[in-house]
């Protein structure tokens, strides 16, 4: 069939999209990941701190640092002290890119990391048939857009997980707060009564003697 060659070329072009990849891991001090990227690919990456700190600690110190380094050691991105971020860059060098996270807070944190590299459409000789070329381009764009949506959805899902955990902490925190506060009030007034009694007993004792 004459038109099978361009169709096969379509498969060649479309089948090489990477797809999204999210993973979760627990970071202690530092954690590094590597990802092999071809020349010209647009790399999207995102991270969300899902859970951090002990039950009461970690407020305000939850962010992590992320440094993205290219295959020749050059710095591509530097993100400081964020709990969640999403970025993309174009890979001008082919090779292994390193994503290194640093945890500044004293507690373990659970991190969700997603990296997604999309091909630009490289030209294949067999796809010169003018009938199909615009169609392939549009389908290629559509697939890339869908993978991007999946990538963003994963980021949104990770952020929702984080919010759910924060909400639960807040709910539990409210109960603890009221118990601690009531106990503290009762103890404080008991202490007040005791001190006043002692004060007057001493004064009474002194004046009577």
């Amino acid at each position, binding site marked *: 069939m004459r038109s099978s060659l361009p169709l096969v070329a379509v498969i060649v072009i479309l089948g090489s999209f990477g797809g999204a990849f999210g993973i979760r891991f627990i970071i202690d001090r530092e954690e590094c990941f590597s990802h092999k990227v071809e020349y010209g690919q647009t790399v999207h990456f995102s991270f969300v701190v899902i859970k951090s700190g002990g039950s009461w600690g970690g407020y305000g110190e939850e962010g992590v640092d992320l440094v993205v380094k290219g295959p020749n050691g050059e710095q591509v991105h530097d993100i400081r002290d964020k709990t969640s971020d999403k970025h993309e860059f174009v890979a001008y060098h082919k090779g292994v890119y390193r994503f290194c996270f640093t945890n500044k807070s004293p507690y373990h944190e659970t991190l969700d990391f997603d990296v997604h590299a999309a091909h630009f459409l490289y030209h294949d000789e067999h796809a010169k048939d003018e009938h199909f070329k615009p169609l392939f381009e549009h389908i290629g764009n559509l697939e890339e857009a869908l993978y991007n949506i*999946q990538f963003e959805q994963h980021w949104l899902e990770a952020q929702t997980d984080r919010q759910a955990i924060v909400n639960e902490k807040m709910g539990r925190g409210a109960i603890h707060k*009221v118990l601690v506060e009531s106990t503290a009030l009762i103890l404080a007034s008991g202490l*007040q009564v005791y001190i006043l009694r002692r004060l007057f007993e001493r004064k009474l004792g002194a004046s009577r003697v």
Partner: protein
Amino acid sequence: MGSSFWTVLFVVAVVVVPAARGVWIDLPSSGTKCVSEEIHNHVVVMADYYAFIGDPDVHNGTIVSIPTMTVKVTSPYGNELHHKENVTHGQFAFTTTESGNYLACFSVDGDQHKHGGKVVTVGIDWKTGIAAKDWDSVAKKEKIEGLELELAKLEGIVQSIHENLNYLINREFEMREVSEKTNARVAWYSITALGVCVVVSLLQIWYLRRYFQKKKLI
């Protein structure tokens, strides 16, 4: 079907097979490194893993011993889904029966000196859901090919996006309920705390009056 078709098919087969997708993780010389993912119920999971030192595409001409490692994959309820020791590469595939956090743990066998002190890297290629679907069998079963198959794949992706979105909507609804409940609780607890404060201070005053009256100060 001339030879050109077969060459093109060969090119397709070579290119479409995913070359170096996925993420590489550095393994510590001792201890395990674990990665996890939240997976819903009834989802197909397929993964490939391989251990190496340095960049697998760079051949220096020296023969470096390929490191072996132990792999363990557990379900959220603790069931072991895959456990292999002393392997350099492998794969696992399963369909999830529980929704939750699936953990894959890797640890290097032997000690650091066996690998010349170099860092062992493990590459993981982890596909879930629609990415793990066997499109070849779908193509054979439904007798579609080429462009139609690609569009069927895109439709599959759109379906999974829609399902994810529904899940996110439900999640947001649950979170909203917790938020509103917490809001009501905080208001109620503040009033309670204020009430406790007032009651306790009234008790204080009553007790002190009684005390001073007893001591004939009032």
